[in-house]
């Protein structure tokens, strides 16, 4: 291992980036733009106004009073309007289809004081959006139904969390994920394309004709791309964690730069996790570039390599909730461990004394080491 040769490879990658402002922009500006958009969408999401109708199919004597009580209780909830003109099921269903109603509460035919089952009807086209209106309605239904029964009080639920606050926005729990995932994605794409160019441009052939070793090439590449990954993660983390309020100035309204996501842990540990993940991505890019002949073929690895990691790594759903067959798959993906570690650090405030964080770091290091070996092994592959 000759440090001068490693330094030469490192300097060359930095010089190439300096002369390629578009790739530099992709690395820095693109994640910022996407995270800013995400923060905007999630942070100032408007409570969708729900139009609700209450329908009484029951012939039970007390049911009329229940309907009236439900209607007025629902009306007290923010964002809910009651449509009292709807009288029967079929009209209600048609109005749901015509987007004139969002939710229908039905007291079924067998409703009675003893059998207090209530049906909720929604359109079912966009379950996420419809689910947003449900908690408010359920809360009202529980208390209203409890009142209507003779003194039989149902428990009310108050939510608390161990970490963070129960009022944590989606953004707070998504921020760690996004930071890790972008670092992985962009570093992989840039290294893959960059190394592919070495292969097809004849420069790899020339590199291999010099006394430089495979290890020196991989290390030089890791340092070069690690340098830019560091730059990227530092800027992205600063943007996610910081918040700089800009006051209104003339016609420009007041706005804030940065998302101001609350972090409980040390940003340096978050950075360490992302760096190890990124180093693995460098070697993975080098390795997979062996199997591509054109830059387009590198992009074809996105649905194969990147998207499944996004789906399985706990980005959207917890690993424990995955089907049994997919769980072992999720547990060999590096992004899984990066996301877990980042959540531990940023939300639970864990530090390096936490066995969970150490495990995540250890596994990430191991995976990176495997990719480094694979990358080094493919560099000698003959360029026929």
């Amino acid at each position: 291992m000759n440090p001068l040769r490693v330094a030469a490879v490192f300097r060359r990658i930095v010089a190439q980036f300096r002369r390629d402002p578009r790739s530099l922009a992709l690395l820095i500006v693109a994640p910022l733009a996407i995270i800013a958009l995400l923060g905007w969408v999630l942070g100032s999401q408007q409570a969708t106004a729900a139009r609700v109708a209450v329908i009484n199919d029951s012939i039970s004597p007390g049911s009329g009073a229940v309907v009236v009580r439900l209607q007025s209780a629902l009306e007290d909830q923010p964002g809910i309007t009651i449509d009292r003109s709807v009288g029967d099921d079929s009209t209600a269903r048609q109005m749901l289809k015509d987007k004139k109603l969002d939710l229908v509460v039905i007291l079924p035919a067998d409703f009675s004081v003893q059998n207090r089952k209530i049906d909720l009807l929604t359109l079912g086209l966009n379950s996420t959006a419809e689910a947003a209106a449900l908690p408010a309605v359920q809360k009202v239904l529980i208390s209203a139904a409890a009142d209507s029964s003779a003194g039989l009080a149902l428990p009310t639920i108050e939510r608390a969390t161990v970490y963070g606050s129960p009022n944590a926005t989606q953004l707070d729990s998504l921020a760690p994920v996004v930071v890790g995932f972008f670092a992985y994605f962009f570093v992989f794409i840039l290294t893959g394309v960059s190394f592919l160019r070495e292969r097809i441009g004849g420069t790899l052939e020339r590199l291999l004709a010099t006394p430089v070793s495979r290890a020196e090439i991989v290390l030089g590449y890791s340092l070069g791309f690690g340098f830019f990954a560091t730059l990227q993660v530092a800027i992205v983390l600063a943007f996610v964690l910081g918040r700089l309020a800009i006051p209104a100035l003339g016609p420009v309204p007041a706005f804030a730069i940065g998302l101001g996501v609350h972090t409980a842990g040390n940003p340096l540990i978050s950075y360490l996790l992302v760096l190890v993940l990124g180093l693995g991505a460098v070697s993975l890019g080098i390795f997979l570039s062996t199997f591509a002949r054109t830059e387009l073929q590198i992009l074809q690895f996105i649905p194969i390599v990147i998207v499944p990691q996004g789906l399985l790594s706990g980005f959207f759903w917890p690993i424990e909730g995955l089907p049994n067959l997919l769980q072992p798959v999720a547990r060999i993906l590096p992004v899984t461990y990066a996301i877990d570690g980042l959540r531990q650090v940023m939300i639970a405030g864990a530090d390096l004394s936490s066995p969970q964080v150490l495990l995540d770091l250890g596994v990430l290091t191991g995976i990176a080491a495997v990719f480094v070996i694979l990358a080094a092994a493919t560099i000698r592959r003959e360029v026929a």
Partner: protein
Amino acid sequence: MTVTPATPPPAVEAAALRKDFGQIHAVDGIDMSLPPGRIYGLLGPNGSGKTTLIRLLMGLASATSGTAKVLGVEMPSRANLSRIGYMTQSDGIYPELSVWENLTFFAALYGQTDKAQLHASLELVELDTRAGTPAQNLSGGMRRRLSMACALAHHPTVIFLDEPTVGVDPALRVQFWEHFHRLAADGATLLVSSHVMDEADRCDELLFIRDGRVLAQGTSAELRKRAGTDNIETAFLRFATDSASAATPAAQPQETGR
């Protein structure tokens, strides 16, 4: 036991060197021994195995069987590569990097960091005024010269040049050959591949190569005399027909196949 070096040890050697790609024998058992300080022309049509032979000699491809030695060291040997220069058929330079950045990068991999010497290498190929220009903005001939400067910056003693004059205009070609002769005069051994037969007379010695085998070896004058012609192309074709008729079809499946 004392060794009396009557002749200097060969700079480049091959013994029963063979490389198969599936059914195709790209290099089909080549033996050669090239004494140092001369320019050897590797002449043959496209696809005759010139590039594969050079890659085998450099240790960039692994031989199916046989051995290759450069300066007495069996290849592949990473340490030995610092004494070898290689100009690839493609330019093999980084288009977004400047002339100077390309040169200093490759030179650094060989441990050559002396700026004055690197400037001298650029002057030699007349690119010293273009040091800051990105390689992608250079003309084809200039890129070829940069590629050569990158291959020679570390003053190698054995130099492999794979079709160095392809796409190079006649004036520049003359300059290239003058440069090659200066290097040989300084003691370097050059193996220059070409499919252009009129470059043959510029080499000290020629190797005719076809279908992965050496048809004949000798000076241009010798080979023409043996073939009984004044024309080097005719000489090549005579050697080629002789070798084809000497071999039975069964022993040469690649002649009848694709």
